[in-house]
């Protein structure tokens, strides 16, 4: 029973939304499907809790073992505790006098600039990486290089100044060769996801029981 009941629950929970989508029967849709949707929102929130617990465990383990970079684990745990305490007990947004609550202050003046800094560094690394990676070593690499140059010129206002057709050529590259490649990736991923879903639905794949 320990094995059969979870499998039965998984099969029912996964098959019913599919049935409800194709056969919008009132009973299935209103009673069962809507209830499942509400449960899904609640269960998904527990995933966040699971992530927090896992993060704490991993970092405590790292500190205990004095693993490489354990100092960063201390920073993670301290800042996590601070932010959680500010968020849970300190209020959020603006006070009546216009000053910010600690959580919002930390978000605006610590978290946001740090994230912006990380992202801004990309421009420097992309420039350096492009210089080293985009080489005309063979036909494929040359085509990639030409495509990249067209997009880079076509996606800036200077492209129009060079020739009014440059943005149109960039748009053509995005619309046709890019779309064709993206479709291949998307369809491949979708087929993989669909086959995985069917395996879960019929009970072949059982990741919810901690094994396949």
């Amino acid at each position, binding site marked *: 029973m320990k094995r059969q009941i979870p499998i039965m629950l998984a099969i029912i929970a996964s098959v019913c939304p599919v049935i409800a989508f194709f056969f919008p029967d009132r009973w299935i849709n209103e009673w069962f499907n809507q209830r499942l949707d509400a449960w899904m929102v609640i269960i*998904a929130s527990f*995933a966040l809790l699971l992530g927090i617990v896992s993060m704490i465990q991993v970092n405590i383990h790292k500190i205990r073992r004095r693993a490489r970079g354990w100092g960063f684990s201390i920073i993670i745990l301290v800042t996590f505790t601070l932010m959680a305490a500010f968020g849970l007990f300190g209020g959020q947004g603006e006070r009546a006098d216009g000053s910010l609550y600690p959580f919002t202050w930390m978000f605006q003046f610590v978290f946001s600039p740090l994230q*912006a800094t990380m992202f801004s560094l990309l421009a420097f690394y*992309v420039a350096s990486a*492009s210089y080293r990676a985009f080489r005309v070593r063979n036909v494929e690499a040359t085509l990639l290089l030409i495509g990249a140059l067209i997009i880079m010129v076509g996606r*800036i206002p200077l492209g129009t100044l060079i020739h009014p057709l440059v943005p149109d050529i960039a748009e053509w590259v995005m619309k046709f060769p890019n779309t064709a490649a993206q479709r291949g990736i998307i369809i491949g991923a979708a087929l993989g996801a669909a086959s995985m879903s069917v395996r879960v639905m019929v009970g072949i794949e059982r990741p919810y029981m901690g094994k396949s």
Partner: protein
Amino acid sequence: MSWADRLLFVDRRIIFLFVFVGALVPIIAPIGLGVTVSPPVQQVFDRIEEMQPGDAVMIAFDYGPSDGPELDPMANSILRHCHFRGVKVVGLSLFPLGGVDMAIARMRQLADELGAADGVGWVNLGYKDGAQAPMKAMGENIASVFPTDANGVPYEEIAMLEGLRNYNNFEMAISLATSILGEWWINLVNAQFGIDVAIGTTAVSAPKYYAYMEAKQTLGVIGGMKGASEYEELVERHYPQAKGLSRTATMGMDVQSIVHLVIIFFILFGNLMFIVTRGKKEAK
């Protein structure tokens, strides 16, 4: 090592310096390059133009501070556009790393610069975890996912939300998205509930959405700072009252133009050196 070999492996700090100067100069001395509008952005703009005053749009702020420089300007432009059209905006966030704060900041800016009042022209429903789960549940009943707005006011007590029960009551949904959230709005919300979905995303994510746009699963894509600058241009062209409002994406395009040119220069230079050194090796 020959001079060409040495140039082939330029110290990356030199490249960093060129990028830094390339970014700095247009900030100090703006160039003011013109903006041409691309069809994917025009389509989103036109769809909002077709709406009548009182229609509703759902805007999902599915991004965090790292994507703010690209997505904040497009959020500002879309909010201004909806305000000028008299279209009601229901904002929400499904992105955990600060999405709700981005929504609060953008809507506060709208209120400050145009006087749009909370609960009249717009409502911010706040954040809900689980992404796909709330997306699906909102197809039946939004109030079951967001029982209150971000200020804790019950959904039923907000007059602007009267009659807005699920996606059927909205003209369109716009996801300002990073990561995979934009794709879920298309795959789940557009495909299952039939509501028009438009995507505003970072420049690196924009290419994948072209496949959905060509398949008519999304009606348009606003890609990166370029897309945001195009939307700013469209709003200013159609609404004189937008003149004088900040156009941060258009200003940013000067920087992007110069940095792109720096990158292109280094790519071409690197290849020139590569061809020279290869030619020398083959001659030996």
